[in-house]
């Protein structure tokens, strides 16, 4: 038993739903009680999908237990088939059905439907959402393509010289982070080096599209969390190589192009610095100097966490002070990455541990999921969202990819925005004695709302799932009710520190004093603390 307040991932059948909701022409019959139908709202409210996920829930009740739940499965399968006419039918069970063991997959198979019926094993008491998505996609691709696997030892035909190389983009799903725009951006990126995208799956794919996967020269594993098993199998069975670099960030995008070039046998040099790639110059421009060494804590799925760490360190000049993931299946990648930056990796699905680590680290920026947004809000730390799970505001109307050169532009804007603009920071420092620049004056973009006190914590409890989040920039936390005392001159000195870092200076000094057993904070202590924390 595990005590859970908030969770990063749903059960594995939610992963299966993400696959079928991404596709057309497939339908999932889920053996589950009525309450499990809540899952539809994730797709229709959070992602604002205009159609219900193609899922039929058997909705069994207590009175059917031990009696006709099996019959209910058959009726549900029959009716779902009649109504939705899927070209592939999947059958799975949610947690409760797993316990009553009706074998819905076998029941459905026995019905002699004229389409492929795939039975999913989704161990609800051992696995989670990403695993379920990965497994479902794999079962689907394998189930459809198995009859077409060439005999062992038969290699794929080389690409005719007059045909452009073809790639499949595998892994984007419903409820994924920015998948829609990443697909478009990577398609453009590949077009820029003369590669055609053949099949995108599961997002927007039909069963027939899946059958065309082997016609491409290679696969791009866009989201390993959902597609690595599939790519591996295709590599083994069809000899299709996999491009494994995930093109998030300038460096990774260039590496991605190199990898594509190597696999496709083409020259990609000209595509590596398009004029639309503004991020490198923005990062080099003088106003970005203030970004140097900003301390960042990253917690996300493995792919986005690792990519973010590289961007932070190499492309924005931040300092990675912590990194972690909730995706245990991919923990190894994050551990390796943590080693590279000399930090302790945090592998957990308990958001309280993440909060604890964030509190200890006191980063200047948090990059995370919806959950970290809330942690950051509580701690008064600027935050940007970089990975699922996300909320409604992370499905923007505008084009906002994370991948490729445009993705890097977008990321520069979104990560730097919560930090104060350099020029503004200088101005405030310059005018800090000016009567108009004081703690109570609010930043220009915040309007007059934040100057007054914000609603108490918990004030936004029990908002419904679709309500928008608060602004990404949050008010600083209240000063600690600490036992240490501030000497009058120290207090005066503190007031000379620009207000937007004053809260932090106060906290750090008090922490330093507490650690050193200092009772009264003097000007001396203030500067000792400053030296101690190195800023």
């Amino acid at each position, binding site marked *: *038993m*595990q005590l*859970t307040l908030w969770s990063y991932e749903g059960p594995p059948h939610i992963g299966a739903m993400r696959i079928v909701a991404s596709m057309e022409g497939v339908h999932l019959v889920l053996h589950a009680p009525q*309450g499990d139908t809540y899952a539809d709202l994730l797709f229709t409210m959070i992602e604002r999908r*205009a159609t219900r996920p193609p899922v039929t829930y*058997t909705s*069994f009740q207590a009175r059917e237990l031990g009696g006709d739940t099996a019959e209910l499965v058959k009726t549900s399968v029959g009716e779902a088939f009649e109504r939705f006419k899927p070209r592939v039918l999947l059958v799975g069970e949610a947690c409760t059905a797993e316990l009553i063991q009706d074998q819905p997959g076998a029941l459905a198979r026995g019905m002699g439907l004229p389409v492929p019926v795939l039975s999913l094993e989704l161990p609800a008491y*051992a696995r989670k959402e990403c695993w379920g998505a990965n497994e479902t996609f794999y079962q689907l691709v394998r189930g459809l393509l198995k009859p077409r696997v060439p005999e062992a030892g038969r290699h794929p035909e080389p690409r005719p010289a007059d045909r452009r190389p073809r790639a499949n983009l595998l892994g984007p799903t419903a409820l994924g982070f920015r998948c829609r725009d990443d697909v478009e951006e990577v398609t453009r990126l590949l077009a820029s080096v003369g590669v055609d995208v053949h099949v995108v799956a599961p997002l927007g794919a039909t069963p027939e599209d899946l059958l065309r996967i082997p016609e491409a020269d290679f696969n791009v594993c866009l989201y390993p969390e959902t597609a690595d098993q599939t790519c591996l199998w295709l590599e083994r069975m069809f000899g299709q190589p996999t491009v494994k670099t995930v093109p998030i960030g300038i460096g990774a995008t260039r590496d991605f192009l190199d990898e594509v070039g190597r696999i496709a046998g083409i020259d990609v040099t000209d595509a590596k610095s398009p004029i639309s790639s503004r991020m490198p110059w923005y990062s080099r421009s003088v106003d970005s100097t203030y970004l140097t060494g900003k301390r960042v804590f990253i917690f996300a799925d493995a792919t986005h966490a690792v990519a973010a760490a590289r961007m932070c360190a190499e492309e924005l000049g931040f300092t990675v002070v912590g990194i972690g993931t909730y995706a245990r299946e991919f923990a190894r990648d994050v551990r390796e990455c943590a080693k590279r930056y000399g930090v302790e990796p945090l592998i957990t699905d308990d958001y309280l541990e993440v909060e604890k680590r964030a509190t200890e680290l006191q980063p200047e920026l948090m990059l995370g999921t919806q959950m970290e947004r809330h942690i950051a809000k509580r701690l008064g730390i600027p935050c940007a969202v970089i990975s699922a799970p996300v909320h409604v505001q992370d499905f923007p109307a505008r084009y906002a990819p994370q991948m490729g050169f445009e993705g890097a532009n977008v990321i520069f804007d979104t990560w730097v925005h919560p930090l104060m603009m350099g020029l503004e920071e200088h101005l405030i420092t310059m005018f800090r004695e000016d009567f108009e620049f004081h703690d109570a004056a609010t930043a220009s973009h915040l309007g007059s709302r934040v100057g007054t006190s914000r609603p108490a914590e918990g004030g936004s409890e029990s*908002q*419904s799932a679709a309500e928008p989040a608060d602004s990404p920039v949050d008010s600083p936390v209240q000063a600690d009710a600490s036992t240490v005392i501030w000497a009058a001159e120290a207090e005066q000195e503190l007031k000379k520190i620009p207000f937007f870092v004053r809260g932090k200076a106060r906290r750090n000094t008090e922490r330093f004093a507490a650690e050193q057993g200092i009772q009264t904070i003097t000007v001396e202590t203030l500067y000792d603390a400053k030296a101690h924390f190195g800023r």
Partner: protein
Amino acid sequence: MSVQQLGRVSAAGDALPVVVRERGQRQVFCGLAGIVWLHRKIQDAFFLVVGSRTCAHLLQSAAGVMIFAEPRFATAILHERDLAGLADCNAELDRVVAEVLERRPDIGTLFLVGSCPSEVIKLDLAKAAERLSGVYRGRVRILDYSASGLETTFTQGEDACLKALVPELPQLPSGERSLLVLGTLPDVVEDQFARLFAELGIGPVHFLPPRRTTEFPPLGSGTKVLLAQPFLGETARACEARGASLLTAPYPFGAEGTLGWLRAATEAWGVTGEVLDAVTAPAIARAQRGLAHHRASLAGKRISFLPDSQLEIPLARFLRRECGMELVEVGTPFLDRQLMAEEMRLLPEGVRLTEGQDLERQLDRLREDRPDLTVCGLGLANPLESEGLRTKWSIELVFTPVHGFDQAADLAELFARPLRRAALLRV
């Protein structure tokens, strides 16, 4: 499934509407969703669901992930090894409870909430609550109820929770009388009702659930029970079993419903109709002024309710009689004929009333009917909007103050807003 219209069942009396019962796929929350508002109301209670990752995910989705304070609910998620043996499972539960109570020393009552998985593996939470009560006696009260989707639909979770509180209520000394109002009401509404009862000379008045579990109301044969929510049948019957008597009334939605509801109490207390009229006249006038604003957008518009919260029938009555809407179909997940008797009388003859759900067929009817407004759950709202149907999410009806005279206009506004918006948009 198939067209499982289990016969046409006529509700008591001939003039009453005919109810069509349906079975099939549903699109509703299970009773766990009630925790979202119950934990806000009972401020010293903690709800520990013993269930699966699905249950945790449902709670989180129903609450919205917008809560950034540490919530007073959590899930003890069962893992593979918990399924191996019940002895270990109980030991694990004790450990998790200890962890919760250590984190939250401010908790007065801990509810162990059963789910589908805990029921199927026959984990006896009543026994566990008893065992743990022994351990934490004098410090924390430990109760249990089941909100599993096998047995409860959405608001029935509150019924199960309140029913678990009934045995805890102190005895009302014989010879004394009191009014007990059942059902979670926002504090502001509760205070309005308390003032009205005081002006009417009715008292003492208590509310269940209380704001804190240290303030349990008494219960006994002198207790008159008045339901503020229509979905509390089990709790009402548990109160009756302890000698209390149930007042029959419509539910306090709209001016008419609220007046009828108060009248039931005045009659029980022997307060005259003149007093009732005098006390309520200003509030009724205010409600009517407020309603007038929205009647223009609502009158003559056709509305359908998909089965969800059991509030459908009282709300349909309000929207028809006070806002002039036309009822196309009124679906309810479960129809308690006894508790709904007064409301059914106020529905027009021939209204299409359905109990239970067979989702796809219901949607077929909806597409055929094309009402101006459909009340439905969050999962269905956007897909229906994309088909050109205007919708109102039902979950707001249990989160927002909608009871009583002074909220009548707000209640109407909830339904008028999507229609006004549809009229505005040119995109």
